[in-house]
């Protein structure tokens, strides 16, 4: 087998990124859309860490840590909005969330 280079990781990350984009663009369930966003963020993280390895410095890893922080904040706020919304509309389908007020 060949040695694993940064390219291999980029392929995996690209695949995860595309999967996340498909999830965001096609699913109706908001929870799954949020999970797809996590997939996208993970793909980005994987890229950053792979580049960090490629260049031999730590900036990529540090960025990845900041993105994890961001993901945590995003999940908390996103799920908070989801609950607030569910309380009012009793639905978690995005295409029913098409009004800017309720």
């Amino acid at each position, binding site marked *: *087998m060949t*040695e*694993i280079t*940064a*390219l*291999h*990781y*980029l392929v*995996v990350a*690209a695949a*995860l*990124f*595309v*999967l*996340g*984009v*498909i*999830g965001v*663009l*096609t*699913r*109706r*369930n908001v*929870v*799954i859309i*949020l*999970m*797809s966003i*996590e*997939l996208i963020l*993970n793909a980005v*993280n*994987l890229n950053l*860490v792979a580049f*960090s*390895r*490629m*260049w*031999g410095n*730590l900036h990529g*890893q*540090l960025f*990845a*840590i*900041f993105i*994890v*922080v*961001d*993901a*945590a*904040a995003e*999940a908390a*706020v996103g*799920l*908070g909005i*989801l*609950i*607030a919304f569910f309380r009012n509309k009793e639905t*978690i*389908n995005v295409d029913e969330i098409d009004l800017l007020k309720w």
Partner: protein
Amino acid sequence: MNPGMHSALNSAVTAANGGMAPVATPWFFYSLAALAVISGVLVITRRNAVHSALALIVTLLSVAGLYLMLYAPFVAGVQIIVYAGGIMVLFLFVIMLVNLDRASKDRQFNRIWPVGLAAACVLMALFVSVIVKGKALFTDRGMPLSESSNTQQIANALYGEAGRMGQYTFAFEIASLLLLVAILGAVIMTKKKI
């Protein structure tokens, strides 16, 4: 405790600081990558949100494994603690709170799903072209990272060393502010009566 303990200890410390042969093999990478991608597919195709969440956990853990292979143990640890242990529990919690059998019996994909899929395909084509054309760009450029002092180096970058501010100290503080805002936002959003 044997008398030779202290010397053994010192040698252990020096050995840990020096580089050592990685145990990981290509086989390991391929299985982790396959696991990540397959469960990624499951995340976006499952009807039931809990199944999706479980699949996402598998993805996250295999990505953590990939981080370990990339000599980023601290990021892997953060990934496990924050993502798998924290965020996913939050997700499962919310899924249970809004547990609607209806949602899993509904139509799963929105009406414009062909458009979304097409857009994603275009994106994928872009990625493929970048990877194919720029293959030569992605080879190792720098010194291999040391796995054993990874945490210390990250700490130095975040908090600064020897009295100087680190490169990322300011960003770190901003991140804490972001988390604070997120906490407040989540509380305000979910609390019935404040």
